[in-house]
Structure formats: C-alpha cells, structure tokens
C-alpha cells in the first residue's frame, strides 16, 4: 500500500521535475506557436495549477477510479488500459507458462546429468538465453519462421479479415473458445506463438539455471535416498520428491520472471505490432503523456504486488512448514 503510494508520488514528481514540456510534446510544432492553444491544453489537463494541488487532485480522482485522461488519445486512461491490458495479459501469461514449463524441464535435465555434456550444453544455452537482445531475437524469429518458412504469422493478434470473438475477457483465445469459434481460436494461437516464445527466451534461460541449482541443493538430501530405498521408480522420485522440494526457490523466481516479461513486452509489442500495454507505455513515455505514464506505472505496480502475493500464497501451498497454524 505504502509502496503503491510511493510509486505514484515518485512517478508524479519525476514527470514534473523532468525538463520537457508535455504541451510541446503533444501539440506539435504549429500549435506551440499559438499561445491560446497551449493555454487551453494546460487548462484542460490542470497543468496550470501548482504542483501539490495537481497531486492532490490526482489522488482524489484515483480513489474514485478515475485515472485521468490521456493527453494522447483523449480518452480516459482507464479506458485505454482496459483496451490494452488483455492483449498483454494474453501474451504475458502464455509466455510465463512456456518459460516455466521449458525452464523447469531443462533445469531438471541439467541437474540430473550434472557435469556431463548435456549439462554443459544447457549451461551455454541458458547463458545465451539471458544474453540475447529480445528485439533482435524477435527480428530473427520473424524472418526465419514467418518470412522464410511461413509457419506462423509475423504480426498482430489475428489475420486481417478475421474478426475478434465476442468480448468476454478480452483474451482472444479464451473468448474464441467460449463462443465456440475454433477457427478464430486457432488463428489467435498462431499469432501468439512467436511473440510468446521470443518473450519467454530470457526467462527460459533464467529458470533453467535456477531450477538446476535448486534441484542440486535438494537431490542429495536423505529423504530422496529414502524415497529410492522404497523402490519407487527414478522418474517418480525426481518428479514428485525432488521437484517438490526444489520448488520454493524456483517460485521465487516467478516474481523476477514477471518483471522481465513486463520489460520485454515493450520491445516485443512494438515489433509484433501487438496492441498492448508495452506499446502504450512506450508511446506515453515518449510523448510525455503524464496521466498515461502514471496510469501505466500504477498498473504495473499493482501487477507486481499481486504477483508477489500470489507467490507468497504458492509458497504456503507447496511447503507446509511455511503455513500458519
């Protein structure tokens, strides 16, 4: 709570203190020369009032769910967010799922084959994953898989001419399934694959490394040997006993992974013309659209808080020793 307030405060102060006139950024060359237009702009957005007043006004609006109006789109920021969040959510969630599934699997593989060739290879692969410029990977991926091979589409959420399914959640995949439009569903999935994988690359590398070390911490514990002594097949021992015990530190990475995804969406959405928050954040930052910046920052902060909360809850689910009572 305090952190959230702090964030709004900092964002506000930052955007105010930084040199650069939002009016100039938003009105364009011609309008700047016209004092009346500038004045109208300022009045509309309350930029002519003293700073603390502006902040108080903002907070007041916030409490009422009013995030202000975007200088750029001339719509309430809340509306903007509502439109763009589902797109990013769909991408982010898909990406996280891919990253965790692949990362954990590879991490286990590397741990079980410790110091053998597979392990060394995976070490290089995972280091490459975290060294790759996301935007470059996106470019190469589009070139190879779309341009040359034609396996998947290279941009946007649906083929031009395909209409979005009836809006329930805003997630095209879910909505398409809900209304039984399997062809739309397939199309949406096709469009998701490439950007989701590109976005996941860094996290796959990260998770492989974390999983490997978590598994190695656990694998020599007595209870693992006891499980083997019971005659259980190695697969069961690894997947049920070892993985379970190694999960807590891996879950911790979940928060970090989300942060990476947030960062990555800015680049990925731009390249894939994905109409999401990342794109919106970029536009608002470059045009100094203050309400929009504040809105995005606030949204991201809330997502962090929620994710951290979920991680804490998951801890309790996985490790009974952590539960209260």
């Amino acid at each position, binding site marked *: 709570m305090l952190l959230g307030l702090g964030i709004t405060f900092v964002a506000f102060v930052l955007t105010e203190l930084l040199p650069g006139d939002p009016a100039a950024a938003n009105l364009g060359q011609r309008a700047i020369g016209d004092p009346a237009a500038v004045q109208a702009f300022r009045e509309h957005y309350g930029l002519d009032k003293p700073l603390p007043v502006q902040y108080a006004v903002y907070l007041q609006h916030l409490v009422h769910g009013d995030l202000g109006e975007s200088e750029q789109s001339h719509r309430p920021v809340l509306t903007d967010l509502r439109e763009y969040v589902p797109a990013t959510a769909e991408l982010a969630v898909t990406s996280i799922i891919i990253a965790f599934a692949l990362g954990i699997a590879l991490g286990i593989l590397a741990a079980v084959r410790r110091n053998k060739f597979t392990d060394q290879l995976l070490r290089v692969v995972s280091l490459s994953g975290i060294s790759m410029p996301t935007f470059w990977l996106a470019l190469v991926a589009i070139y190879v898989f779309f341009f040359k091979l034609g396996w998947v589409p290279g941009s946007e959420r649906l083929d031009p001419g395909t209409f979005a399914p009836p809006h329930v959640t805003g997630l095209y995949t879910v909505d398409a399934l809900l209304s039984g439009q399997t062809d739309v569903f397939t199309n949406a999935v096709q469009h998701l694959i490439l950007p989701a994988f590109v976005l996941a690359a860094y996290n796959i590398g990260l998770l492989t490394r974390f999983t490997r070390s978590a598994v190695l911490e656990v694998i020599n514990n007595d209870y693992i040997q*006891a499980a083997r*002594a019971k005659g259980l*097949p190695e697969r069961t021992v690894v997947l049920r006993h070892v993985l379970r015990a190694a999960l807590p530190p891996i879950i911790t990475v979940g928060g970090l992974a989300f942060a990476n995804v947030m960062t990555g969406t800015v680049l990925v959405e731009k390249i894939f013309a994905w109409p999401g928050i990342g794109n919106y954040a970029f536009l608002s930052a470059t045009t100094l659209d203050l309400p929009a910046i504040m809105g995005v920052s606030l949204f991201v902060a809330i997502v962090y808080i929620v994710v951290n909360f979920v991680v804490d809850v998951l801890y309790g689910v996985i490790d*009974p020793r952590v539960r209260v009572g």
Partner: protein
Amino acid sequence: MGRSAVNPTLLEVRKLRIHLPTASGMSTVVDGVDFEVRRGEVFGIAGESGSGKTMSVLALLGLLPDGAVVEGSAKYDGIELLGLKGPSMREIRGAEIAMVFQDPMTSLHPMLSVERQLTEHVRYHLGVSARQARIRAAQLLREVRIPDPESALGGYPHQFSGGMRQRIAIAIALACNPKLLIADEPTTALDVTVQAGVLRLLDRLRVEAGLSVVMITHDLGVMSSIAEWLTVMYAGRVVESGRTADVLARPRHPYTAGLLAALPHPEAPAETALRAIKGAPPSPLARPAGCAFHPRCDYARPSCSTSVPALVPIGEGRTLACPVDPLIA
C-alpha cells in the same frame, strides 16, 4: 551351538568390498566383509562412524554413490543383490528389503503428507487403490502407536516429535511387508527416554511379522537390548562376531574390549576416569598395513603390522580376526 540349526538364511554376504571415488583416487571403505542374517532374527552391526557399516548395507539396496565399485556377493533369498539391474532392484527395495534411516528429521520428505509417504510405495509395489492404501496406512500408524491415526495421515513430518517421526518412518518401512528391515542408527537421533520405546516397538513388530532386522549402531547398550547376533566392524573389516551376549560379556578382540571399557559404568565410583582407546580410527585412504587396529592396540605384535588377520571361527558360533587373541579369559 551354531546358527545352522533350524533357521534358514535370508541374507548371505561374502567377501564384500566397496571402493568409493574420492578426490585422491579410489578408497576402499569396506574391505572383505562376511555376515549372515537368518529369518526372524535381529542381527547387529556395531562400529564407529567410518567403519563401513552403513556402506555395507547401502550396497545391498544399490544405493551407493555414483562411481562406487563393489566386489563380492550378497545373496538375498538366493538372489544376487550386487549388480542387480534397475527394475529388479526396485522390486526388492521397499517390498523385500526396507530401510529406516538415522535421522527422521531429514529422512522424511518435509512437503509430502504422512499419508502420501505411507502409501506411494504400497500402491506402486502392490497395485492397491488409493482408498485401500489409506486404510492400510491408518492401520500401520495404529501399529506403531501413533495417536489419532486418521488425522495424523493428513499431517506433515514437521508437526510430529522426533520419536513419532521415527515411528512413522518404521511404519513406512514395514508398509509392504518386507522380510528384511535394515535399521541404520534408528535411535541415535532420539532422546534416551524415547529410544527405549522405539526399540520395544521394533522388537514387537519383528516378532509379530517374523521380520529379520539388521540393526546398525555404535551404541553397545542398544545392541545388547535388541540384537541376538553381533558383528563388530572396524575400518571396513569385521573384527569379531558371535552372539551379542557372548561378545559383550567376553570380548575377544582388543577393539571390542576397548569399546566396552570406554562405556561409563553406572555403578562405578564418580572419580573413575573414562578410558578411551588411544589414537583415532584411520581414514579409508590411510588404512594401516596389516591389522587396521594395530597402532591403537595394547597387544600388538610385529606380525600385526604385516599380515591382515583372517576371520576365523573360534567355536560357539563366534568368529574372530585376531591371531594374537590376547583376551582369552
């Protein structure tokens, strides 16, 4: 009066040698060990840490660390255990031969429920349904005297005391009705007051189930209370064996005598000094030539440093690896 009488042999270990890889090459942690366990009897292996007792039994279940080299033979019910392939080994583990480890704090999985840990191998080995396994699990908990078994099933190891955890571990080990139970220092991590209860439990269960038990411990007091037959190991070799009562009352090997003498006597006067065996046990990499104990032995002769003493029967079911044999009463 030998053991060859009525009781058939369940486990026969001959010339067991185990070499482990270390930073400075292979080290021989078990160097030619022989022993037998019969049906329904409690067989004790005594020795300090590093004597190779744990490794010997781990070899039986194929649980040695990677890179270990094993020689010799270990026949369980006619089946050769050493070198047994995966699927066959898994059939033996838990179902025929089960193990209870030393520290119940670490040998039970902290994140899996008691029920899960009691039933997973039962379902795997015996193919029973979840419901049946659960009923059996509750029954097992009752047998090991865990109060309120039904709710204990839903609990987790950290919610139980050390003694109770070890009882749960014993229940887990016995869940598939194995014929042989290996208990590696089962009471060492427990309070003295709790030890007796666990030992009584083990004794009762093995009588009821006709179970054979291999009891590993360095605690001679525990050994005397539960084991019928005893083998004393030192530095990877057997130095003496026989009926526990005999060996402990009339030890023939200087090491055994030293161990016994080191025990504080409850009725000795308060100022009696504790008598330790001089020196320290050798590391497997630096085992003395000849008899491994000779540097610490009060009765050592020149020949002791050159030839490894053979384990020879000396009557009454006893064997001894000491040509000097200085302690004949």
